[in-house]
Every structure is written in C-alpha cells, then in structure tokens.
C-alpha cells in the first residue's frame, strides 16, 4: 500500500490519504464522529457555529483563568477589554474605549469609553465598571494571574460615566497591550461570575456543561452584533474525531490544532487553515526550580542540551514550527541576536553537566515529566526528552494528566519536576512575556525569581527609550538563557481549521479573538 521513501513525509501523506479515503469512502470518518457523540443535527440548528476544542476550561471568570488554553472561548466572546490588539499591525484598536490620550509625562492616561454599551443583564456600562475591573485584578486577595500586567497603575478613577483616568507610578510603553488582556467584568453580578458570567461582549453566556460543551448566544444589544446566532464549543479530546467532525459538517471549526492536523486538512477539500503570524506561541518545558535537584542550574542546562529541537519541529510539527531556545522571537526588536541557536542538541554535554551535578548511570537522575491530555505535540515532546535522558542512564517517567488536574499540580499547588507547556509570546509588547504566568517574577510556573530579576523586569517594562529598552530586554534574555528556568523548544503560529465561512475569524495574538465577522 505504501512505497518506501526516505524522507517524503508530505508526499506520503497526500498519497496515503487519497488511498485511504478511496478505500473507506469517507465512511470511517462519519462512523468515528458518530461514536464520539457528534451529530449532524448541529447543522439543522441554523446559524450555530460549532467549534471543536480538545479540552475543557477551568473557570468562566475571565480574570482568573491563567493557563487554560481554551480560555479564549469565553474571554473573546462574552467579555471585552478596553482595547483590542490588531493581529496585523500589533497595535491597539478601540474596543470598549473609543479613544485615549496620555499626558506629556506619560503618567496620566485618559480613556473615553464607547457610549450606548450595555451589559448582558441590561444595565448600562460605565466608567465605574472599568475602575472596578482594574482594582479587582490588582487585589491581592483575588489573586488574579493578570495582576502583574497592571503593577504600574497606582490609581484608577472614573472622572465621569464615560471617562476613566489611570495614574501610573512610572511610565509603561506597553500599557495598551497590558490593558488588552484585562477583560472588563460587571460588579453587580460578580457573585455569579463562575456560573453565569455577565459581560458586554457580542455573545452572552448560555451554558457550560463541564467536560462536554460551552455555549454562548448572540447578544442583540451589542453595538456591532455578530452574524452567527450562537457559538458552541464541543470538547472532543481526540484529534482524529475533530477532523472527522469537520469533514462531515458536524463541526464548522476546530480551534488550536497541531501540525499533523494541518497536514491532513491541507489535503482535503473544503477545509481551510486559519493561522496567525508564525511566532505567536512557544512550546516549552517548565522546570520546578524550587525542587532539588532542579534548583541546580547545571541540571536545567543539561536538560536543555538533551533535546533535539530541530528534529522535533521537523517531524512532529511537519516544519510548521521553528526551533528556538529563546522564547523571544527574532521578529521582535528586543530579540538577543544569535540566541535562538544556543544549546544545540548534545547528549554528551548533557551527560557531562549532569555528572558535574552528581548524576550518572550509577546514581541516575529520577524525575517525572507531566503533560496535559489532549495536546499530542506536548506529549511527544515529553516522550522525546524522556527517551534521550533514559539513553544516558537516567530514570524518567512521563505522566499524562487531565488539564484541570494538571493546572492544580503545576500552578495551584505546585507539585512537579518538569512539565510540558505552551504560552503566547505576546509579540505586541516585549513586557508581555515577563508579566504573565510564564515568566512574571511574582508568580511563574517555574517558581523562578532570582535576586535582581524582579527589578530588571520592572526597569525594562518602564523604559521609554527604545535603545535602552532593547538593552534591558537583551540582558533579561541572557539571564534566562543562562539560568534556564524553562526550556523553550519552538515558535509556532496558532492554527484553526474551518469551513470557508470561518476564514473571517480574527485570531488575536494575546488570546482574544474576534468572531463577529463569521457568517455561515
């Protein structure tokens, strides 16, 4: 059935797929979709956009969802922020704020809000809601993972119903990018935000059946109402079943797919690949730097040498990802030149560094790598590192965990050695990466905050002069690459698959997408 080829992955893919479909006449896809509970009834519901996602969300509260990969579902539809980062220009477009001015010293920002905006419960949206949302994120008792984005704001006040004035403790060039991820919530209904969230977004929350589906419906009171009647996200952990759903029409879109899905979609008619710029996401291993022996940077550097990033991106991502050890993409002005190629794959070097730290074949390093279910590429990443380390005599196990259990183990109550992960690079603002749970000094998954790091992050985020800013961020990257609290593997775009109609989805770089233009 298949001819032996040396490297012809793509060629083999097309040929095999064609043969395969001829063989099964597409019926296997339909049968599989049926067995996974997808029905074609969705089409008859009329104007519903049904989207397949691989795992559940952790919470409906848009200010509390730190590592949910699919938090964009609720955050992009039910809620809105002051501004929206345009994925093409990477600059801020108006969203809830109509316009804004900053004072000459850059310390006072005035936002004029859109008028006529109402909450889903009918009450009018006012400046007080913005002030409440900002103070809620900043409140240490709330413990929002977005708090580091707002450290510079010392005061938020409502000048009148439609004007918000933010006073900054120091200048922040990336303030708009920071505000773009702070979703504005409704104070009156805050008590029920985790069960019945109320937002100002184009869709109102309908229901969430954990482990099964999330549904939002068109909000007619929106100033720019969406064209679809509802969006329903179905949790279909199996990637093949999601593709099958697209083929038989029970799903109109699949969110955040991997290289193997893109390859399979490219060779089937009627499935479009929707993607962002190629450096919006990075995959990495987070290392628990508080736990011995991973508190020893030689061990962490050894792990970085023990992974063949180039081979991984080529085979697991079919070349759609780009290998790098530096989370900052070369496209950003702050990138440290030449750094992406550091730590080339070198098992001898890894073994030598581990030996220095006291680990050898006779005294093997024993560790467990966690990986969340539903992310096949992350699992492959874990298996490759496991194999490489086992080959030089160490004892590595890989454990796959449901995403909510996984979040508990790595974030809520950290209890792990290593975990696979992925994060947005935040290309719109160099500070973004260092302000979010991946690297924020106050709270990051690697529990890494060496002396001086917080100061450096603060200084870099406040620096207005471009040359000086680049210098500070390069210093940060040097520190990161030397200390290796996380092993970055690759940069990649966000991929969605969908029917022709869904191509008008706008995927934002920081996980806020725009579904309003999609018409079925």
């Amino acid at each position, binding site marked *: 059935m*298949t001819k*032996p*080829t040396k490297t012809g*992955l793509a060629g083999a*893919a097309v040929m095999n797929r064609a043969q395969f479909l001829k063989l099964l006449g597409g019926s296997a896809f339909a049968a599989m979709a049926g067995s996974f509970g997808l029905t074609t009834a969705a089409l008859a519901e009329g104007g519903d956009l049904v989207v397949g996602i691989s795992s559940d969300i952790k919470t409906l509260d848009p200010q509390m969802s730190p590592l949910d990969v699919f938090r964009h579902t609720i955050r992009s539809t039910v809620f809105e922020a002051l501004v929206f980062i345009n994925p093409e220009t990477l600059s801020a477009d108006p969203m809830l704020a109509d316009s804004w001015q900053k004072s000459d010293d850059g310390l006072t920002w005035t936002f004029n809000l859109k008028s006529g905006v109402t909450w889903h419960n009918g009450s009018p949206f006012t400046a007080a809601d913005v002030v409440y949302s900002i103070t809620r994120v900043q409140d240490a008792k709330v413990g929002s993972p977005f708090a580091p984005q707002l450290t510079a704001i010392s005061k938020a006040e409502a000048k009148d119903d439609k004007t918000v004035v933010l006073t900054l403790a120091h200048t922040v060039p990336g303030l708009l990018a920071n505000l773009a991820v702070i979703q504005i919530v409704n104070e009156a209904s805050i008590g029920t935000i985790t069960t019945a969230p109320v937002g100002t977004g184009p869709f109102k929350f309908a229901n969430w059946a954990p482990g099964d589906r999330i549904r939002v419906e068109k909000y007619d009171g929106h100033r720019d109402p969406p064209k679809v009647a509802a969006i329903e996200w179905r949790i279909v952990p199996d990637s093949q079943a999601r593709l099958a759903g697209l083929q038989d029409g029970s799903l109109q879109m699949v969110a955040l797919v991997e290289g193997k899905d893109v390859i399979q979609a490219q060779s089937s008619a009627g499935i479009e690949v929707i993607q962002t710029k190629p450096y919006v996401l990075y995959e990495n291993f987070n290392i628990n730097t508080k736990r011995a022996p991973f508190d020893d940077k030689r061990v962490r550097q050894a792990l970085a040498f023990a992974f063949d990033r180039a081979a991984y991106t080529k085979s697991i991502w079919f070349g759609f990802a780009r290998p790098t050890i530096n989370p900052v993409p070369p496209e950003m002005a702050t990138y440290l030149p030449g750094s992406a190629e550091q730590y080339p794959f070198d098992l001898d070097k890894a073994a030598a560094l581990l030996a220095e730290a006291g680990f050898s074949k006779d005294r093997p390093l024993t560790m467990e790598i966690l990986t969340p279910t539903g992310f096949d590429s992350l699992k492959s990443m874990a*298996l490759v590192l496991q194999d490489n380390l086992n080959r030089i005599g160490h004892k590595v196990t890989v454990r796959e965990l449901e995403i909510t259990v996984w979040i508990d183990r790595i974030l809520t109550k950290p209890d792990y050695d290593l975990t696979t992960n992925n994060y947005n690079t935040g290309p719109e603002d160099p500070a973004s990466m260092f302000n979010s749970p991946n690297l924020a000094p106050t709270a990051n998954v690697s529990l890494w905050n060496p002396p001086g790091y917080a100061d450096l992050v603060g200084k870099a985020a406040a620096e207005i002069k471009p040359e000086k800013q680049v210098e500070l961020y390069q210093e940060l990257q040097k520190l990161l690459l030397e200390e290796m609290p996380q092993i970055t593997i690759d940069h990649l775009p966000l991929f969605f698959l969908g029917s022709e109609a869904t191509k008008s989805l706008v995927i934002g770089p920081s996980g806020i997408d725009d579904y309003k233009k999609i018409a079925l």
Partner: protein
Amino acid sequence: MTEISTPVRPQSGAVSYILRRSPVAALLVALFLIAALLGPWLAPHSMTDTNLGHALQPPNATYWLGTDALGRDVLSRLLGSAGIAAQAFLIVVLTGGVLGTLFGLVAGGIGGLTDLVLSRVIEILQGFPTVLVAIVIVALLSPSLTNAMIAVGLAAVPDFARVARGVAIQLREREFIQAARGLGMSEMRILASEVLPNMVGPLIIIASFDGAQAIMWEAALSFLGLGVQPPYPSFGSMLREAQNFLAIQPSLAITVGLTVSAIILGLNLLGDGLSDYYDRSDK
C-alpha cells in the same frame, strides 16, 4: 469395592489434537509465544529509542513495518507489546485462576452454607463492571500494567469459580470420591488430590478465553493511558498513537490492529479446540 473407577482422563495428547484439528490456532499461538518470549532478542531495533529523523516511515528494508511518529521501529514495538500482552495474560489467569478455582472448589466440594456464602461473593464480584474497577484501582494506586491487570484478574474470578464449582458438585457424589471418603481422607485432601486434577481441562479452556479477554482489556486500558506507561510499548498505546496519524500513515493502525486481532483469534480458536478435545475425551 476392589477397583476405584476414575473418570476418563484425556489419553491422546492435547497438543497433537490441536495441531491436527486447528492448525491455525496452533500457528497463531505459537507465533504469539515466540514473540512474547523471544521478543527482546528478535527485535531488530530498540523498542524505546526515538529517532525523529526517521519518523512515520512506511514499511521498508530497514524498518520492516515502518516507524511511528517518534521514529521508533514498529516491528520491535509490536514484539515488545506481545511480551506485555503475555504478562497481562499471566497476571489475569493467575489471579483469576487461583482465586476462582479455590472459591469454586471449596464452594462446590463442601456445599451447604459455605457454598451459599461463597456463591454470593462470586455473584457480587461478577456484578462489578470490569473497566470501572480497573480505573478505580489504577486511580487509587498508579497507572501500571500490574495494577490494571489485577483489576481485570479479579473480574475473571467468577468465570473460574463457576466452572470449578460445577465440576466439584458433579464429582462430589461419584464413586471414586465416595471411596476416598471411605478410606478416611479429609474433605480438603479429597478436594486437592481427587477433585482438582479432574477440573484442569475445563479450567484451561476458561484460561484461554479469559486470557484473550485480558489481552483485550490490557489494550483498552493502555489505549486510555491507564495501563503500560511510556516509553514501553503496548498494543493499546500503539493503537492510540496510530489513530492520530490515521490519514497520514494508515499502515501504523492497520499493523497494530491486525496483530491484536490475530492473537485474540488464535487464543479463541485454541479455546474452542481444547473444548472439543475435552468434550470428546469425556465421552
């Protein structure tokens, strides 16, 4: 009472009967045993070494059955999986066989209140949903082949117990047992030395069917990530990985699927053959 009559024990060898009556079963089971016992020596490549540069190759001269997404040799992993399947078979047959036979033998051989109580215990065991019990055990302990298979073994206890009990009840009043009793043997000794040897045939048949079931359960649990943990191969985890590449490299899923089917078919045919054999020799 001069001669103690014993029931007819199988005279001609079971092996030659199977070879003659179902050569397919003999062939498939022999291949399975060779793979399981000699797998590590026969494997042309490592079962666990990844080689991303050689990922997803179709069958070729170097990799006879191709490679998986991490560039591991499929043939070598299949041989490893056969070893795992054989372990699953053994654990289930030993757990289920030993416990089940003991329960059934005592219940059927002694009868009365003991039988009543033990039979109810067996019925309760039979009522447990196998997968659920397996998942609970694995969740409480940790995912591993042994933990998963002990759960499946417990589910096999009633099968063995019912057969053992049936045979024991049948034999209880037979002349040779009466004679042994007359000679002053204790009930326990009668069960062990007179009744037990006479139920070996039926128990082997159950073992071949439940063993085949065990291999299926092992594959199912490993498919769900609850059985054998990476990097070690198992039919279930191989199938799950293959499923992700169904349209890119269908030969992966087909090879693994055919292998499991062949093993199960072989064991079931063997069970049928043995069943015929003992039926015939009982008459």
